């Protein structure tokens, strides 16, 4: 066998091994990023925020998010999945944290969602804005995109545009930013479950496991009472 043929066989085998390992590891359920013994930072009730889910839910998932952040978009389906799995036990409390220094359209997106909220469609716009992030996030002026989304939701266009420019809504978003800073939120998305800051769950399995453990803790406490 010539040296070149041997080399080719080694190359093919090595590519196959690297490929097999990459496929194997990419399909593994990811573990939480840290299991350090130091306690997680805690969040006291911040006030404000928008709620999704039953008021008397056992677990409250607090999210500080930025509508233009790709990670927030990636985590959005996980949050929805967690809410749909525990419709009676889990509720979401969402706070705006637009990182305007790197996401030029994030403040306008928060205002668009708040403006839709004025017409009772906060969560519908929240979902749509994430779903269409790729379209409006690159636009130098995203307002027409937001207006198109508002029309899809059947909102009154004039009232929506007026609300987007309302100082009260801007103030509401900025109050959320202050809350994020008070809670030492360093990046988006940041999740708190029952006041405890979470490492970013890498998969829906990890997300659900964390929620399960909080529900289990609550059940144990209630049983012991």
């Amino acid at each position, binding site marked *: 066998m010539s040296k070149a043929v041997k080399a080719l066989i080694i190359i093919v085998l090595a590519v196959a091994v*690297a490929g097999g390992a990459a496929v194997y590891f990419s399909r593994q359920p990811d573990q939480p990023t840290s299991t350090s013994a130091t306690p997680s930072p805690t969040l006291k009730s911040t006030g404000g925020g928008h709620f999704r889910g039953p008021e008397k839910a056992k677990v409250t998932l607090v999210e500080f998010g930025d509508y233009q952040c*790709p990670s927030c978009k990636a985590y959005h389906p996980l949050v929805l999945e967690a809410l749909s799995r525990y419709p009676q036990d889990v509720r979401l409390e969402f706070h705006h944290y637009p990182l305007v220094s790197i996401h030029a359209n994030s403040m306008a997106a928060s205002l668009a969602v708040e403006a839709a909220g004025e017409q009772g469609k906060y969560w519908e716009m929240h979902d749509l804005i994430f779903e269409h992030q790729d379209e409006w996030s690159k636009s130098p002026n995203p307002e027409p995109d937001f207006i198109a989304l508002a029309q899809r939701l059947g909102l009154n266009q004039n009232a929506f545009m007026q609300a987007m420019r309302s100082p009260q809504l801007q103030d509401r978003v900025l109050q959320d930013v202050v809350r994020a800073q008070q809670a030492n939120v360093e990046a988006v998305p940041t999740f708190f479950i029952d006041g405890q800051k979470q490492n970013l769950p890498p998969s829906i399995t990890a997300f659900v496991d964390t929620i399960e453990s909080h529900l289990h803790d609550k059940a144990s406490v209630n049983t012991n009472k």
Partner: protein
Amino acid sequence: MSKRAVAIAVLSFIGMFDALYLSLKRNAGPIPCHVTRGCTDVLTSRYSELMGIPLSVFGLIFYVAVFSLAVFEISGAGKTLNWVFWPATAGAAISAVLVGIQAFALKAYCEYCLLSAILVLSIFLLSPHPWVHKHPQ
């Protein structure tokens, strides 16, 4: 057997795994970071692809090519390691730009991309320079 060729083969093998892993993970939801924070931000940003092709695919092609050249050298089929220098130079320059984008434009870091940058830089430093006539062993 050149120790330099073996080192380049090992580094490019790790790079192949890194690039393949990223290519597979890219469109499969959040990409977990273990050391840095912001893998998903970096890997789904507008800088993460060229003409619709993820940069990790270009990285994979680079690593397979460098690995092949190193293996041909090790097996004695030819002095192919001399061909690594210029692709490695281009790779190191592109990696420097991509690290700069992470630091200044995205303000987020992806550990897999940083690992790749270290691998490319190491391959560049190890590759025999064309103006060195005698191939050091």
